[in-house]
């Protein structure tokens, strides 16, 4: 079991962000985490990463309890945050090199990994560019490269394709599948249903801090209706309602 | 009026840091001006130097007379005659002037080679200048008596010198009906306001302009069906209101500090002049706000406010600044503001000639303000269609 969350409760003051939340992610899965805005997706991810204090419950990663000091676990995790997290004063190459260097100390090994990462996201022509000069799509690709350069066994991506053109998005999705084939377990959150349908092996839908549905795409569609034209979007709206969220 | 409303919202968000700034700069202005107090009206006083005397010529009659003379005119500080204690006292300004009378000084005055007195003082201070003068007068008077009355006895000599040196010109400080003698203190406060008003303007306005200058917001604003004239007007309006609030607080405090002294024509003119300066300050802030980034605002503020205040006579009075410096400073509104305040401070006769003169200076301040606004307008127009 790559991730095992048991009965997790996380409150922000009086607001219950995660309400007795339990989750299991197996090795080799591409796991989709869906939910309306404010459902607790990002909070769940931050708890998995041991960034947040939790009120009760446990989080295990790679069958070991997760904590901020668990460096042996952390070195095998890669994160691609929702906000682009790169330094404007470093070039594309320097950014990837810096963040990879927090995981891989050996310079020779790291250089090779950085090259691979640049190639992987297709930023070869932009190695010497500064983030300010990159378009939204390229920035996202850089963001991804910074998160996966060290070849982690678990990759968490929080809405990685926001504001990205179709070519880049396709590129990213293909890349994720490739990473998965190379052996990484993926956790993927997004609002884009087509993406989820395309690549996720298992899906969990959250709302108000609880899981309200889980299964494969097929299973979820069947649970709502057996119409051939039912899309995952319909399933989602069915389960979470059509009201606007925050 | 959307832009204006946005201004109000941003101003409210920025309130904590604005309060910090207002508090600090108000505190500074009040502190400095309360330290710089001139004597009460009608009194003429000479500041007494903090003086330490080491008289090694114990038997010298003239030396004793000198000690007595200096003691009457200065604030005597007792000090141990060791170098460390002396250094400490000078370091902490417990003493401003030290004079050492060497052995045999009195007697040597009658010879061809009189011994010199030793002095240690803080150079450039008016008190040391004044004490120099006192000592020199005393000594030269002594030498004159000795030269022209060689047979005069020491005792007679001391008595003559005592009589001469005790002559004191009476000074009458004229008071005028409509003029408050405390006006000078009010002028000091308003001069220091140059620092506070400008600092608050730049920090406050830039805080707002940085948010508004954020490129996405700017683009959103530019696409809106609002003329650039309307947008600029609303931004100006918002800033003017901010300026008015700051002005009211800072000038208003003076009414608490100086009470009835504020209800004179002089004070009224000072308030008006401060208003003119505020306009210049806000316009300058608008110009700066177009360029500044959050990290550099503090440094820019310091350079401009402290720098112009130093060369314009806020911290060092204008009469002590060289003419080259003053010419350079005259390219800043601060210089004219201080100059105007100083003139208003001593004005008794509000003739049209006098009023026109200070009015002219105030107009120069307003002119600076207008100039800054025009430049700011052009800069922001250029930014509109730049490559950014």
């Amino acid at each position, binding site marked *: 079991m790559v991730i095992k969350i048991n009965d997790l409760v996380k409150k*922000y003051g009086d607001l219950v962000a995660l309400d007795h939340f339990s989750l299991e992610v197996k090795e080799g899965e591409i796991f989709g985490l869906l939910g309306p805005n404010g459902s607790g997706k990002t909070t769940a991810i*931050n708890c998995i990463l041991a*960034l*947040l*204090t939790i009120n009760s419950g446990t989080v295990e990663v790679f069958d070991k309890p997760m904590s*901020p000091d668990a*460096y042996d676990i952390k*070195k095998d995790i890669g*994160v691609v*945050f929702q906000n682009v*997290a790169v330094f*404007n*004063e470093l070039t594309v190459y320097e950014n990837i090199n810096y963040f990879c*260097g*927090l*995981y891989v100390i050996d310079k020779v090994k790291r250089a090779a990994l950085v090259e691979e990462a640049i190639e992987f996201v297709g930023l070869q022509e932009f190695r010497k560019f500064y983030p300010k000069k990159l378009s939204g799509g390229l920035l996202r690709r850089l963001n991804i490269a*910074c998160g996966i350069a060290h070849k982690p066994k678990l990759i968490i991506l929080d809405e990685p394709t926001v504001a990205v053109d179709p070519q880049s998005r396709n590129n990213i999705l293909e890349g994720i599948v490739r990473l998965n084939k190379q052996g990484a377990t993926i956790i993927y959150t997004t609002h884009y249903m087509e993406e989820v349908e395309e690549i996720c092996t298992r899906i969990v839908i959250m709302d108000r801090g609880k899981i309200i549905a889980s299964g494969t795409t097929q299973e979820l569609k069947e649970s709502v209706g057996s119409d051939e034209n039912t899309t995952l979007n319909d399933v989602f709206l069915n389960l979470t309602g059509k009201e606007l969220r925050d | 009026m959307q832009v204006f409303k946005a201004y109000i919202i941003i101003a409210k968000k920025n309130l*904590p840091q*604005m309060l910090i*700034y207002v508090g600090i700069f108000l505190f*500074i202005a009040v502190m400095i001006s309360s*330290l710089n107090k*001139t004597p009460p009206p009608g009194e*003429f006083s000479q500041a007494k130097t903090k003086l330490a005397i080491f008289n090694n010529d114990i038997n010298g009659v003239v030396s004793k007379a000198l000690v007595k003379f200096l003691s009457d005119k200065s604030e005597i500080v007792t000090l141990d005659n060791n170098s460390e204690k002396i250094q400490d006292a*000078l*370091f*902490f300004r417990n003493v401003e002037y*030290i004079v050492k009378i060497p052995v045999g000084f009195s007697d040597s005055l009658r010879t061809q080679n*009189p011994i*010199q*007195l030793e*002095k*240690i003082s803080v*150079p*450039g201070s008016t008190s040391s200048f004044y004490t120099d003068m006192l000592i020199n007068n005393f000594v030269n*008077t002594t030498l*004159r008596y000795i030269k*022209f009355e060689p047979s005069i006895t020491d005792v007679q000599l001391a008595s003559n010198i005592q009589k*001469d040196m005790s002559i004191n*010109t009476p*000074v*009458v*400080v004229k008071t*005028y009906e409509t003029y408050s003698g405390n006006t000078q203190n009010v002028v000091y406060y308003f001069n220091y306001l140059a*620092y506070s008003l400008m600092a608050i303007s730049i*920090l406050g306005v830039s805080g707002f302009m940085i948010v508004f200058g954020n490129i996405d917001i700017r683009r959103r604003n530019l696409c809106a069906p609002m003329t650039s004239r309307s947008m600029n007007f609303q931004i100006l309006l918002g800033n003017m209101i901010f300026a008015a609030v700051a002005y009211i607080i800072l000038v208003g405090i003076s009414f608490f500090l100086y009470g009835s002294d504020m209800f004179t024509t002089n004070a009224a003119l000072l308030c008006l002049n401060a208003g003119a300066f505020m306009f210049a300050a806000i316009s300058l802030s608008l110009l700066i706000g177009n360029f500044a980034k959050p*990290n550099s605002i*503090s440094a*820019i*503020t*310091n*350079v401009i406010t*402290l720098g112009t205040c*130093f*060369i314009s006579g806020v911290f060092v009075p204008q*009469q*002590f*600044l060289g003419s080259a*410096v003053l010419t350079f400073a005259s390219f800043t509104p601060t210089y004219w503001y201080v100059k105007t305040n100083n003139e208003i401070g*001593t004005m008794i006769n509000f003739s049209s000639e006098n009023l026109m003169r200070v009015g002219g200076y105030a107009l120069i301040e307003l002119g600076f303000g207008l100039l800054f606004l025009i430049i700011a307008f052009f800069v922001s127009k250029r930014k509109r269609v730049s490559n950014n």
Partner: protein
Amino acid sequence: MFLHVFVNRLKCILGDRQIIFWTLMFPILLGTLFNLAFSNLASAENFSKISIAVVDSPAYQKSMLKTVIGFVSQAASSDSMFVVTLTDEKQAIDLLKNNKVEGYISMKNGPKLFVKQSGINQTIIKSFLDTTSQMESTFNSIVKSDPVKYQNPINLIQLQLSLTSNANLLKEVSASKSKPDTTVNYFYTLIAMACLYGGFLGLKEIGALQADLSTQGARINVAPVHKMKVLMGSLAAALLVNYAEILVVLAYLILVLKVNFGDQIGYILLLSLAGSMLGLSLGAFVTALVKKGEGVKIGILTGVSMMLSFFAGMMYVDIKYLITKNIPILGYLNPANLITDGFYSLYFYDDHTRFFINLGGVLVFTTLLCVGTYLVLRRRRYASI
């Protein structure tokens, strides 16, 4: 790992052009302007001429004052202190009222000075009148001592002339190797302020390292590195840049503006280093501690450095002396003042006791701030990010 973080953070800081430019430029620009403002002060003789009026009267025409004024206000003489207008009483009153003169003198019943306020110029006029009257008294005394001799006009004139010659029997000695000086304090306070501005670099570094302050910080927190290592590397890079900037400013002040810091280079460098560390740790501490937005942090840092500099005498040097006289403990509690006094003691004192007291104070502050920062940052998890 330390080196990796150090090198990259160094690149980040140097790439932030605005911050580098302004933290360097502001003390240089201000120093230049200070220098301009003070350039005239050193020579006290450069006071501008004082306008006075004298009420003409028979008494005046006979007086010593007339002779001395005649001597002192010769238009050609550049040493002349006064611009004198001889007029009647009504005019004189008017001139005073309209600020055309600083004071007027009347000889009715002996010399009297009429002024409107009690300022430096008025004191100078009074002193001048005192001296003149005193000279007159001496003159009369001497004449009275031998009336026969002074019936001879030659002797009288000789006496008169002698009254204008002055011997200077005052020798300036120094209490220490340097003269006490009021203006250098402003420059020392400037350096202190420049050190405190290192706080903005501290702000930047802590911001890049805390998950609740930036997403880049979140990346650091999920990486398998001890936050302290990253902190050390970041602060070391910031210190290097800040110290380098201070050295540039010092070089400018000493070599170009010729401000006197004394010649003990080693100690100067040491104090500057301590000052840089202080500023940096102040910024780090404020950033780590204050939970509100960036604007508020900047506001606090700016406000604090201004206040501390103010109390160290930056705008008005007497504030500093006021504090040391009345509440001396405050002088030691002000880090800016410690830096300023540290430089001044190097300049002024012969031995180093006071210097080390000040240096020690700076280091104590730095340590406290670093410990404080560590205590806040050491929390590994956040309540929210």
